[in-house]
């Protein structure tokens, strides 16, 4: 390890003082901090787009058939004649909203941003193992974002088969207009995205394993780094499977193969493809799709562990158990995928196996929740905006997690599968938790990223609007689902044909949900203002604003190539020595040697 550190240091001396051009500093940068910021800004843009899409289709759901100037402004005459959204476009918006949120905001944005910024800083490395590959990872991400964004503006509309793009719907342009050019762009965008994710993940893994500084053993890593490491491993093992699935679909679409197609008559045309299985696609998709949930969630849990420990001024409770749960969740996430497929006609016995493995995940998840709660217990809590979001995350993780128990139970899944209950469940447990983790991360590490502070008061306003809005949207949604409302329906007034009571209930709840959604969306303007304003005009940060123990707070506020001027720091203790009895301050940085007779924390 010493040799590596020394080498990296030498490298720094050689290159540290070169004047950099604008292009190499801000655009094709190979510095992990700049790449992290690039990921963040791209993801914020994509996130705003996806949020806007959700507002458009929420308007349709709450007030079906009523013309809206807002909808007409964004969709125009073709897709929203008279301000009423067209059926196909509704599905297009739903599809792209899901795709962007899951992949571009919560995978690329969350993991890309924070793995990049925090891994080298927290393990004590000069940069990522390969700066060039890291740059490539961002630019692939950028191209794939661009492609996905552009697909919304083509004549036949974007992909419309749902974010899971199940064939045959996604394979047959005759079945829906979005399965033409829009789907082709979706598939190519995702293929590039997979490449970006793989390159990035490999880099993260190598950096964590090989570039830790002196004294930084695996059991002295902050939980953030553990979470990023396991996330990267999940990505490397599962994304290639999605790539294979996507490739076969591309071949079915373009080369006339029949991997997923069999016995189909569509648009009056009898296809010759026989022997393929649409279920095969679902297996391949969910083999990525389920680990993907944890690719989204684990980094958020890692960030919140760090934030909660720092702001409770207490060590995270059960550090080793936390690492154990991250590993257990990561492992289990690979053997649960078919719980998305209980009612696809898959053999029921296979379903039983997946019930068992899926419910096992609840155990490490419960351990994490109780460890968070115990960390807060008898703490000395400081409510920074980051801390508020981290607590919000724990709450949504609980609330969304428990409904997962219903869905994991195959027998119960029969009745709620593909209803709004599922939509509510995954938005709360995955969407909200991950978004809260991401917001928490941005507030907490903003000083590290930009050397400035974000405004605390606006942070409070942002949190409370978001928290209230989020529960306001997704709590009632569970009840729409329990009433049996299928997801991806354009208009629930069809219920009027057979159950007027249900229809009334759904319409009432849909209006409540949409109002909260608009409220929450407006709240994000506060964040956007705060974020961009603070980048330029925020008060300058001090070196260690939150009085944290980890290595990133020992670097200078101004970014420099190589992160530390002079020698790399040496680590002497675990990262959670907060409020240790006998210490002068309520935190002891990792670089402080153990005092005489002091025992290491965990």
């Amino acid at each position: 390890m010493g040799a590596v550190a020394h080498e990296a240091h030498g490298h720094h001396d050689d290159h540290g003082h070169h004047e950099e051009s604008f292009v190499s500093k801000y655009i094709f940068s190979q510095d992990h901090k700049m790449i992290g910021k690039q990921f963040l800004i791209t993801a914020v843009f994509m996130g705003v787009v996806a949020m806007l899409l959700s507002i458009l289709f929420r308007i349709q759901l709450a007030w079906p058939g009523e013309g809206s100037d807002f909808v007409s402004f964004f969709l125009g005459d073709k897709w929203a004649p008279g301000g009423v959204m067209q059926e196909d476009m509704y599905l297009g918006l739903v599809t792209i909203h899901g795709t962007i949120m899951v992949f571009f905001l919560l995978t690329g944005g969350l993991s890309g941003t924070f793995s990049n910024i925090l891994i080298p800083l927290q393990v004590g490395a000069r940069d990522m193992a390969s700066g060039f590959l890291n740059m490539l990872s961002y630019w692939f991400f950028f191209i794939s974002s661009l492609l996905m964004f552009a697909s919304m503006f083509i004549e036949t509309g974007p992909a419309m088969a749902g974010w899971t793009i199940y064939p045959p719907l996604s394979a047959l342009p005759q079945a829906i207009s979005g399965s033409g050019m829009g789907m082709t762009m979706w598939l190519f965008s995702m293929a590039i995205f997979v490449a970006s994710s793989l390159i990035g993940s490999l880099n993260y893994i190598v950096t964590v394993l090989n570039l830790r500084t002196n004294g930084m053993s695996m059991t002295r890593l902050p939980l953030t780094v553990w979470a990023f490491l396991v996330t990267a491993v999940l990505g490397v093992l599962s994304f290639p499977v999605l790539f294979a699935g996507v490739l076969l679909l591309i071949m079915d679409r373009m080369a006339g193969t029949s991997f997923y197609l069999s016995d189909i008559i569509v648009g009056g045309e009898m296809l010759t493809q026989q022997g393929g299985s649409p279920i095969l696609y679902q297996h391949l998709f969910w083999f990525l799709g389920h680990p993907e949930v944890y690719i989204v969630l684990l980094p958020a849990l890692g960030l919140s562990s760090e934030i909660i420990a720092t702001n409770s001024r207490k060590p995270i409770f059960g550090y080793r158990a936390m690492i154990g749960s991250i590993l257990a969740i990561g492992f289990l996430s690979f053997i649960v995928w078919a719980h998305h497929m209980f009612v696809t006609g898959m053999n029921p016995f296979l379903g039983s196996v997946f019930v068992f493995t899926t419910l096992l995940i609840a155990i490490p998840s419960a351990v994490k929740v109780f460890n968070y709660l115990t960390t807060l217990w008898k703490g000395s809590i400081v409510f920074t905006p980051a801390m508020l979001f981290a607590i919000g995350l724990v709450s949504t993780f609980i609330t969304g997690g428990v409904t997962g128990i219903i869905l994991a139970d195959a027998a119960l899944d029969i009745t709620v599968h593909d209803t709004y209950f599922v939509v509510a469940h995954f938005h709360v447990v995955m969407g909200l938790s991950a978004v809260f983790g991401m917001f928490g991360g941005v507030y907490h590490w903003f000083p590290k990223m930009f050397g400035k502070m974000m405004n605390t008061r606006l942070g409070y306003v942002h949190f409370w609007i978001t928290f209230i809005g989020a529960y306001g949207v997704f709590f009632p949604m569970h009840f729409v689902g329990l009433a049996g409302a299928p997801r991806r329906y354009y208009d629930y007034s069809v219920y009027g044909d057979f159950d007027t009571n249900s229809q009334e209930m759904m319409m009432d709840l849909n209006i409540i949900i949409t109002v909260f959604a608009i409220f929450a969306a407006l709240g994000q303007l506060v964040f956007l203002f705060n974020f961009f304003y603070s980048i330029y005009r925020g008060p300058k940060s001090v070196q260690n604003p939150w009085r944290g123990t980890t290595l990133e707070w020992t670097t200078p506020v101004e970014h420099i190539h190589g992160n530390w001027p002079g020698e790399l720091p040496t680590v002497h203790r675990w990262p959670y020595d907060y409020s240790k009895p006998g210490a002068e301050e309520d935190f002891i940085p990792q670089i402080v040697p153990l005092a005489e007779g002091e025992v290491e924390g965990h």
Partner: protein
Amino acid sequence: MGVVAVAQMMRVYELSTKLRDKHESDISNRDNRMNAGLMLIFMIVLFVGFIWLMLTFGWVGRGDAASVHGEELDWLLNLNFFIIVTVFFLCNFLLFWFAYKYVKRPGVPAFYYPHNNKLEMLWTVVPAIVLAIIIIFGLRSWNNATGDAGKDAIEIELFSKQFDWTARYSGANNELGRFDYKLTTGNNELALLTSNTIDSAIMEMEMGIHKMERILNKRDTMLVPEDREKMTLDLHRKEKLIRMLYQMKARHDVKEDAWAWDDIIQKDTLYLCVDQEYNFTFRSKDVIHSAYFPHFRVQMNTVPGMTTRFKFTPNKTTDEMRKDMNNPNFHYVLMCNKICGGAHYKMKMMVVVLSKKEYTAWMKSKKKQTFKDVYFAKPPAAPAPENGEGEPAVPADGVVTPPIDGVEPVEAGL
């Protein structure tokens, strides 16, 4: 304007913090206490909101289950709900209470408490035990629900396509006729397999091929190259299909015809008999759909290229359910619950559960409308019926008036 105003406010705020010599990262005690209080208030609002939603909407949507296995599933759902609602209240309470109680108080240090193996063991073992209970009950119900149907179960097939459903009753012999998608013609929409349907499919296909060959071989017409290419491809496709049809004809066993001839095809409304077990098989013509009967607690995808199945026994007639739901206009329904295209949301079929007597009467009325009757009512070689004028007016769906009032044919979508 708004942005400018906020920016001005920000500047005032910044100046005032500078004057007080306070850094942005220092959180004042007042701010801390305010947020702690808000946490507690939020918790109360959250809990009250949840209870209100539960009381107002919790049991409205679908009513009680209307099938035998559905009742078992509802019991299981209630058990699970009891567990998860308890966990929800307990954990959220602890979270918000701790957030409120342990807010920073000047001079009171945090309690250094890095780990406790006993506690961690406790919250590994207790969830494991609870989950074991959930798994055992869950798998028991799952096996019951997905097991094989009994001997007396009536076979019905549900055929799905963009954007409607067609039911096929197995008829007198309770044996569904076989099918092959290549047999789909205007008067054999479900592609049932009989000697006659094979012949007419071959005939229709041959006519199509001849027509195309005539156009392609005509020397005096110029075709746009793209059109010619498209037509050639289409021709190849048809030639491939007709080869397979001839193979099918060679292999076909005439004895199987009887399975199909007595099947009864039913559109718009599905009639079921109360307390009668049904074994449903599902089929799709184009993309994946999902047969979702919310009130019977039944759901199964329909997948092109394969058949899926689900059995259930309705145990409340429509009339009984109307009383239970306190809604005289209530209907059971079959909905599509897998995204299948633009009109996905309109793809549904009404379901009526009749008493034994009513059901027998209805079945009787359908006796003369078997697949054989309907098929031979139209000459097999006739052009596709949808544009055939002056066809004999025997619709596939009977002229029978539904025994229950208010059953209107559902629009078939697009």
